[in-house]
């Protein structure tokens, strides 16, 4: 069974539920303090939260931590690396994914459920979804407004949409370019997303749509 490191930076706060979701999806998972090593892991998840309290810019300080060198190496080997919310911010700040996550168009924290269209099923994290499938998950962030001057090095994985899957402005909660909610690198083994799949992995919490992100990741890591 593949084993995932859920990296805990000072201020990370979605680590426990992310570990649970990975386990539910059939993987092994451990919380790994950011000063520990990533040896022996088959993949990495950078969970949500407020590492370093989001001081300076969300994800900026964590992105400069030494452990990110190991994450880069692991990504280079083709192992899966998933960044959720703050984890996505860490991925862009560290250059593992291009672009930047800017303050929401209404510059405050926003916690609500959204619809997402799955735009790319050829990634390590989306292979169990149908192309164009519409799923529901919560977002909870103040800096999720994706911006890039060049989209040539990324693939769009998830987009904010309406219930029917149309990518319309009204469905865009934060001002993100092209309603982008998640992107991956060209190889599809590094993915960042603002919505929280771990919060949509239990029927009692409103949806199990997010579980497939982890199932896909576990399956991918088995190869």
């Amino acid at each position, binding site marked *: 069974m593949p084993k995932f490191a859920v990296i805990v930076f000072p*201020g990370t706060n979605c680590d426990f539920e992310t570990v649970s979701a990975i386990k539910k999806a059939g993987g092994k998972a451990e919380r790994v303090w950011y000063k520990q090593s990533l040896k022996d892991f088959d993949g990495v998840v950078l969970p949500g939260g407020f590492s370093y309290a989001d001081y300076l810019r969300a994800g900026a300080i964590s992105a400069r931590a030494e452990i990110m060198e190991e994450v880069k190496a692991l990504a280079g080997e083709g192992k899966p690396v998933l960044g959720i919310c703050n984890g996505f911010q860490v991925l862009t700040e560290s250059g593992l994914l291009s672009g930047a996550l800017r303050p929401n168009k209404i510059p405050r924290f926003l916690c609500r459920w959204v619809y997402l269209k799955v735009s790319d099923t050829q990634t390590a994290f989306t292979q169990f979804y149908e192309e164009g499938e519409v799923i529901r998950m919560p977002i909870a962030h103040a800096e999720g407004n994706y911006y890039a001057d060049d989209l040539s090095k990324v693939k769009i994985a998830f987009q904010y949409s309406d219930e029917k899957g149309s990518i319309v402005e009204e469905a865009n909660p934060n001002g993100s370019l092209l309603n982008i909610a998640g992107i991956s690198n060209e190889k599809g083994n590094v993915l960042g997303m603002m919505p929280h799949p771990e919060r949509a992995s239990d029927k*009692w919490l409103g949806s199990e749509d997010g579980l497939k992100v982890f199932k896909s990741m576990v399956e991918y890591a088995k190869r």
Partner: protein
Amino acid sequence: MFPHEEKLIKERLGREPNEVENAMLEVMWSEHASYKSSRKWLKLLPTKNEHVILGPGEDAGVVKFDENTAIVVGIESHNHPSAVEPYGGAATGIGGIVRDILCMGARPIALLDPIRFGPLEKERNRYLFEYVVKGIADYGNRIGVPTVGGETEFDESLDSYTLVNVACIGLMSPEELVHSYVEESGLLLVLVGNKTGRDGIHGVTFASEELSENADRSAVQIPDPFTEKLLIEATLEALKTGKVKALKDLGGGGLTCASSEMAGKKGFGAIIYADRVPQREPNMNPMEVMISESQERMLFAVRKEDLNEITKIFEKYELEWVVVGETIEKPRYIVYWGDEKIADLPIDLLADVPTIEWEAKPYSIEKEVKTPEISVEEALIRVLSSPNIIDKEWVYRQYDHEVQGRTVLKPGLDAAVLKINDEYGLAFVSDGNPSYSYLNPCHGAMSAVAEAVRNLVSVGAKPLALVDNLNFASPERPEVYWSFIETIKGLRDAAKAFDLAYVSGNVSFYNEVGNKPIKPTPVVAALGRVKLENITTMDFKSEGEMIGIVGITKKELGGSELYRVLGIDGGVAPKVELEREKKNAEGILKAIELGLVKAVHDVSKGGIAVALMEMALAGGVGFEVDINKVPVKGELSPVEVLFSESQARFIVSFNKEDLEKLRELFDEFAVIGEVKGKILLFKNKEEELARLSLEKAQEFYNSLPKLLGEEE
């Protein structure tokens, strides 16, 4: 401190206290720390039953959820600091209550924020509102504790002031409980967390004085959620070792309060080496160090041989720590500054503060008033667009209410529900009705409890326990003190009727501005237990459902939202009939258990009209009701029927075939209409009283951003 207290201290001590001792006694003998004006009355509250593991007396109460699960719960006010610096005041209020929960050994899992302000028309009130919310959001979100509910109320009497209460719950297994007191001498006292600055040097005394115009900066602090989050994780990890002998957070009264209570509670003493405390500001003196209220600090008691193991954990989280003292056999409280002994007091002198009983003078302002002539339609629009009724989405969308992955029922419904295990959830809600309390303190207090219970049962939860937060003006005012005593009696009677106990609470006196007392404001937070599959919500589910009302409607509009928007101060406040409340609540639980109802919502602020509208908007479907079918007592006009705030009432929707079974469950039950179309339609027999499209109602309901001047 009052002169007679100073005299008493001198007598007990046999000498004048020195400057440092005096400062320490001053904070410990303050109203805020000693509860000297309230203690006697608080004893009236029921605090024990089969659900209670630990009642009032420590930092938070502990409730049994099931054999393996205990819930820690507490409530706290941060009114004065928030009125001076709303952002920092509210944020540090969250920090304080979270540490109270943490220091019982539990992981904090949810927050509620009952907050109250003056009218939004005024700039200062908007400023206070926006920054209180931002403070709560920034702190709660960053420490990863979801804010899952609360209250937001606006009232003329709070102009330029704010009441910020926060309740928190934590989760642990019962054997993880740690106490705030030591039971042996020779333990090391370890101070962990932020450095100590000149924060809140007059904080404790400040909270017990009326707000003066130029409150200085010592009253407010810069919140540091980053350190708080590290403290949470480090503390929980340290507790796992089983080697923490006692644990307390530093709050009001700072190091003096935390260490003297920790040592003295079971008769031990302490030596404190004050000069070892890491200082944030240059040249602090011993007095400042001892009573500083700098935030994000905790005090651990550990055995010498365990120090290394515990402090390694602090270092992992890059938290500064220091052995600041030790516990001793002799019941004295001794402070050193370098080699110099700067204080030496009998430890019980700090904690053993005599009660004060102020003069109490009843007042009676309730009297019948005539409801002005106003059409149902106009009343509807005025009430639906009142800031007290409209959707608080603007508030709770700023709060991460999903973090930790437990939030089953999110904010915006009758009560929040957190998933505790695969079968059961914990419901959590807060309520307070100062407008009723003002007219009738006893019934106002009872209504806070009754409404909390109604909110719990509306989602299918069986009430478990209560906490209370009593926000009052100066107890030295005879009318205020009387209203305080009446409030306690109301809280007592209501809890007893429901077989509930208060496991923790807080009293905040001296809430006045410009020499005007605030209304008596008891706030109650309640916990309940719900089977996940029984969880019920207030949204109408589908067209064709029948709409029923449980309970009797009387002419009780004093303190109602209708009277408020019409500017009527008087009237007769709703009276709580505890037997009826209990019966109807039990009926609702039964109906839910039997699967007889589709939607349930309690009737509270804004009466039947608002309850129906909320159910329709939540479900995205309209209704048609005939108010003539509403069971009433007395002569009521249609407007009064719709906007009366009589207690013990619920609206339910259900399928026709379940009608007879439902009737059997309640003494007072009537069918008043059906779920239908996209219109909210109020009729009196055949006469149409008002009709409002869902769209229009939604527009009123969502008007908070506009009131804040946000929409372009």
